[in-house]
């Protein structure tokens, strides 16, 4: 209706006119992401967490595993800004190192889920027929089991370790990406430019990789960011249950598990890992929502 009217052609073809520097697609996405304060906040926290995890050895004031029997469960102080735990370890150092487990679990498990789910979804959506039926029935079966329950069951089956927890979370999240990429492929395949691609003689594999894949990447990216948040919660839950990161290596989930025994004597032992999980999850969700808006082609003008 009025949309086309309000947005006139951005380019005039005057042959003599100098070519204006138009932003490329990536720059444009950055511009639109930047216009959303919540997304910027999310991005800043994500970057801070990543920095914390990468440089933990340099930032952390103490060895996260070093016990100090002279300073057991001390309240936050100048020497220990976050306090200490039941064996006198510095909580700030453990939170900083714990970011590694959380982020590694979030990123690795989602990377695994995308690596498995995207090709399967692409295949199901583009090939259709029996292949689609088989892949989708399997996916439906997996989606029928709640994400966290499935992850716990798989982790228990594989045995307690951070690596196994990541594999369990990744496998549990795979079906999300199969389903999403299949739906995206089907939507893109209905577009006229896919027909145009066939009309010039593109073989099917080239249509899938060159024409369909680049157009579904944005949706996958958004979903991946949101799933990282869910995976961080899942890792914390598994570690809380003793199925993830093994002591004495720090993890926010296992820190919470220990802290629950000292809630009235040393509440700070629970507060810091709790706040950390909350911030990590919130920041990935904010970033994901911002990306969703920034990548939406309908917002173009």
């Amino acid at each position, binding site marked *: 209706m009025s949309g086309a009217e309000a947005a006139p*052609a*951005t*380019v005039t*073809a005057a*042959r003599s006119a100098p*070519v204006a520097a*138009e932003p*490329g*697609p990536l720059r444009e996405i950055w511009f639109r992401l930047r216009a959303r304060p919540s997304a910027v906040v999310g991005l800043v926290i994500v970057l801070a967490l990543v920095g914390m995890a990468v440089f933990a050895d340099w930032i952390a004031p103490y060895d996260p595993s070093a016990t100090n029997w002279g300073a057991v469960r001390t309240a936050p102080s100048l020497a220990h800004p976050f306090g200490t735990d039941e064996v006198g370890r510095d909580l700030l150092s453990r939170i900083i190192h714990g970011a590694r487990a959380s982020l590694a679990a979030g990123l690795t498990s989602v990377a695994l889920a995308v690596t498995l789910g995207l090709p399967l979804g692409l295949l199901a959506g583009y090939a259709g027929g029996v292949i689609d039926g088989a892949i989708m029935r399997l996916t439906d079966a997996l989606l029928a089991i709640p994400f966290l329950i499935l992850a716990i069951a798989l982790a228990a089956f594989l045995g307690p370790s951070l690596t196994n927890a990541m594999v369990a979370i990744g496998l549990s999240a795979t079906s999300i990406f199969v389903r999403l990429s299949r739906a995206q492929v089907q939507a893109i395949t209905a*577009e*006229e*430019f896919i*027909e*145009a*691609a*066939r*009309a*010039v*003689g*593109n*073989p099917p594999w*080239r249509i899938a990789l*060159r*024409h369909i894949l*680049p*157009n579904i990447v944005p949706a996958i990216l958004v979903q991946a960011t949101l799933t990282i948040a869910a995976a961080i919660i899942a890792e914390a839950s598994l570690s809380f249950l003793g199925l993830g990161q093994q002591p004495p290596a720090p993890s926010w989930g296992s820190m919470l598990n220990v802290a629950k025994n000292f809630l009235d004597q040393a509440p700070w032992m629970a507060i810091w890992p709790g706040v950390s999980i909350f911030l990590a999850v919130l920041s990935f969700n904010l970033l994901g929502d911002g990306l969703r808006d920034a990548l939406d*082609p309908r917002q*173009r003008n």
Partner: protein
Amino acid sequence: MTEPAAPYPLLSVRNLSKHYPLRSWWGGTASVFKAVHDVSFDIRPNETLGLVGESGSGKSTVGRAVTMLNPPTSGHVVFQGADLARLTAREMRGMRRHIQMVFQDPYSALNPRMSAGAYVLEPLLLHAADRSRAELREEVAGLFERVGLDPRFAGRYPHQFSGGQRQRICIARAIALKPRFIVADEPIAALDVSIQAQVVNLLQDLQDELGLSYLFISHDLRMVRYLCHRVAVLWRGGIVELADSETLYRDPRHPYTRRLLAAVPVPDPAAERRRISTIGLAEPAPQGAGHVLTEVAPGHWVAQNADG
């Protein structure tokens, strides 16, 4: 049905049908929807055949059946001696260098994540990959020039172009392989009036230069008359009239053709007011369709058993 014989056809379409089974909810075929039924026509070298019809007439279905993008249920499409309907997928992909298509909506016909240059280059990569990169880049720049676009815009993405410019990109891509035949499915319908004439002139110039044949699918009878040598009127999946364009517009025989021509607005206020006052206010009742063509004058074919 026999179709208008033509000397040296480049493309012969014979008894082309596209039927869709309508499944009932418990499975099984309840009935068949005949989107296109028993359509035959020829296109000569260097000729433009107009295919005119309203929505639901099956005109786009014909275009996609002829190019095997949506192959016909039955019938033959003979191009340079080869029946396209009998080719394997691989053979058909090779054949596409001679048969190209321009689509209606230049907004959805361009891959939003491919630059204009990459889009025009793609057919060359697929069918002429033995040439060097520099040669191909040169070729793409030449194609941009040919369709009236600045080659410096090759790095831009579709959303940075206007509708008319996008359609020029599509045309550059279609002529990249110097095809013999182009199906143009409503190529100007989505463009502004002042831009439509530019694109029509471009299509005509390219025809003269490259010796192209067009199947020009359109609902715009004014442009069809201007661009096409012969015109076929499609109604409810069948051709009801086919003649050279002068004859068809001067002496329409089928009642539907007459109704269609009478509906075209005239850019003359006095004549237009007269025309409107003769139009019935209510929608006319649907008429029965019959599609057996007979030659009423040399080269002028009309479906005869339609209601008169």
